[in-house]
């Protein structure tokens, strides 16, 4: 199994993501590592107990954009829904979406870490 195959198994559209990097797989992998770092660095900002809504939305919004550009679809879709609910003041529903998405996000992070 390779990183690409494993990520594909987790729902990442690696073909399209790779194409967006001009077919340069090492660059794509480097970008995935950066996304992984970004998600991990933002985890504290996504803590509902410590941060206000605006800060949480800002952090989630940034992950949403970056994961979308790299075609890490499950993360992109999860954060898209999360941001939408947060903006609509539906905090409890947003939390549920976030918790539902967390296992796949963690699996993707672990997978990237395993190969980097």
């Amino acid at each position, binding site marked *: 199994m390779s990183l690409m195959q494993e990520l594909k198994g987790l729902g990442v559209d690696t073909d399209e993501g790779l194409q*967006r*990097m*001009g077919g*340069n797989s090492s*660059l794509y992998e480097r*970008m995935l590592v*950066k*996304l992984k770092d*970004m998600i991990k660095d933002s985890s504290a900002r996504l803590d509902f107990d410590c941060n206000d809504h605006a800060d949480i939305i*800002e952090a989630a*919004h*940034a*992950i*949403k*954009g*970056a994961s*979308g*550009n*790299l*075609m890490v679809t499950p993360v*992109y879709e999860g954060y898209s829904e999360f*941001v939408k609910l947060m903006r609509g003041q539906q905090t409890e529903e947003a939390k549920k979406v976030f918790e539902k998405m967390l296992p796949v996000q963690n699996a993707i992070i672990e997978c990237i870490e395993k190969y980097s």
Partner: protein
Amino acid sequence: MEEKRTILIADDAEVNREILRLIFEEQFEILEAEDGEQTVRMLEDNHEEIVMLFLDLMMPGKTGLEVMEYMHKKGYINTIPVIMITGEATAETDVKAYEYGASDIIYKPFNPKVVMRRAINIMELFENRIDIETKLKERTEALVVAQKKLEKNNEFLVNALSSVVEFRSLESGEHIKRVKRFTRILMNYMMKYHPEYGLVKEQVDLIVNASALHDIGKITIPDSILLKPAKLTVSEFEEMKKHTTNGCEILEKFKQDESDFYRYCYDICRYHHERYDGNGYPDGLVGEEIPIWAQVVSIVDVYDALISKRVYKMAYAVDEAVRMIHDGECGVFSPKVMECFDLAKEDLFQTTEVASFVENNTDAF
């Protein structure tokens, strides 16, 4: 070697900046900013080289819209196209971005090929616009220079033509110069104190130039009348009066339709002996029937005639000339023109002094 042009990518997510860098780094120098404050600093330092700004809407420090506000203040928005990058497509954000001057909006996630094509199209459009504006500015400047040259040439020809008449009257040519100077002084007062006439500087310039031709018709008057040192007989005076209409006949041969300058020349030539009460010639116009430029040249011509030596009379002192005009000894002028004449008295007097000094000193040589 041609210098690479610069693209500034402003986005707080490194991944997004990297993707944009990847798209453009072969053809462009890339600058990156990770927040709004850094974007502003980079614009400040590199605005002359930057040909495109990718601007994330949501950034720490300053938002994308705040960066665009700064670009408006600095005028950079006119020379640097901005592509706004946003994660959410809402009509409100889109409208705002365009109102702030964005050239385009790209939604995340974006397709690199589409971004590349749209960015290049926008850069080409902007470059073409700036190129057209530069060329237009250059051509406008060249036109202004050419027009000024043409105006100078015209003025020279008008002065030369009017001097012919004066030399024939055995005068020095200074009368025309003084009439022009006095006309400008009085017209400036009219423009300032009587806005109801709607006079503007460009118009006054033409009127001043046209005033030089007020006596062009005297070229048609026989020497026996024009140079007569004594008082003219009634029939001789009737003949002399024809210089107004004869002048117009000369001008009509060179008629320029729709030309303001021609209109001023014609009106001044024909009506500069009309009087406000209708007792002037050749048409006996009354009051404001007489164009204001003809009214102004009329009083100026009288004033200069009084303070100058002529074949048939000595020069009057300035105060005496002013008194004679006030007392209506030279005909009736409009109250508005008289009011401005009084206001301009000091300026006219000083100009007379300078003109006399120049004339006397020129005569000495």
